[in-house]
């Protein structure tokens, strides 16, 4: 059954069919969210939010593009909105960090299998460098690199999601890689 057929059934009232779309695209949307947020719990919550929003606005899906393209647009916009920190959000986040709302294992969950404390420290530092470098890229470069590196999309697919030309995507990716290189080098020097 194609996405369009599933959507048709959902709009006719068979909302359980939405589970099929969720199961098919959940991991990919999660990866996109992860690329922007770098935190598993936040990415899970945002993925949930994205699918609920998608379901609520399904009747507005015209079918001009593939359903997946439309879904990724929602995921990218939701992620960008989430990271555009308002002063209030920043205060909350700092407060959470001070009070230990998210401990080391949660923040660097990927290191949980490491046993050597020195290795944990080094890898934590490396994670912070890369995440900081990615987070300080301009929004469009960041979006292009997340879709390319985290979701393995082709330049054509990225162009469709971002609604720009393939040439523009190529230029964005090149600038993003150059910026990333410079940012990583400067962080390494500042150490």
């Amino acid at each position: 059954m194609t996405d369009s057929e599933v959507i048709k059934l959902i709009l006719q009232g068979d909302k359980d069919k939405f589970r099929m779309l969720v199961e098919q695209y959940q991991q990919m949307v999660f990866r996109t969210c992860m690329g922007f947020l770098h935190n598993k719990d936040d990415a899970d919550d945002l993925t949930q939010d994205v699918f609920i929003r998608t379901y609520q606005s399904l009747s507005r899906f015209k079918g001009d593009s593939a359903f997946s393209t439309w879904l990724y647009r929602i995921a990218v916009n939701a992620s960008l909105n989430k990271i555009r920190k308002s002063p209030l959000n920043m205060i909350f986040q700092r407060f959470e960090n001070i009070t230990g709302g998210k401990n080391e294992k949660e923040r660097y969950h990927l290191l949980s299998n490491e046993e050597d404390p020195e290795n944990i420290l080094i890898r934590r530092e490396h994670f912070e460098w890369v995440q900081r470098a990615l987070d300080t890229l301009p929004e469009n470069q960041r979006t292009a690199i997340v879709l390319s590196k985290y979701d393995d999309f082709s330049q054509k697919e990225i162009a469709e999601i971002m609604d720009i030309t393939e040439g523009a995507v190529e230029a964005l990716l090149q600038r993003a890689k150059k910026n990333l290189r410079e940012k990583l080098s400067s962080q390494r020097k500042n150490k």
Partner: protein
Amino acid sequence: MDAYREGKLPRDIMTQVESHLETCKTCSEIYRLQVLADKVIDQERKLQSDPFLTNRIMAGIDDPAGSGSQSETVLIRILKPALMTVSMAAAIFFGILLGNLSQPVTDRVKLPVELALIDDAAIETVNILLNE
């Protein structure tokens, strides 16, 4: 450098880049950092979403009000303390207001003599007792 990292270069150029990286400190450092970035991204990519996420999403669709979405959570975090402060201020205000309403009347109205006879307080004043 990207093409080298992704193995997209012809064999002879790959060898040239390899030998250059062995001698050039700047390029080898850049290469090392890029490999590091790829490694971090790759590890984040490998993460799996919550196994119960599909059920959470379907439950959120059935009950959008109870889905606990991000925007709602932030709104609750802001509104809750504000609402508590307003409730406390209102409780104090109405407490003072009610307290003022139930204060005893200090200025007693003078009763006529006839009625004073059935007013115990007026009959048994201290003055009467003193006069006796």
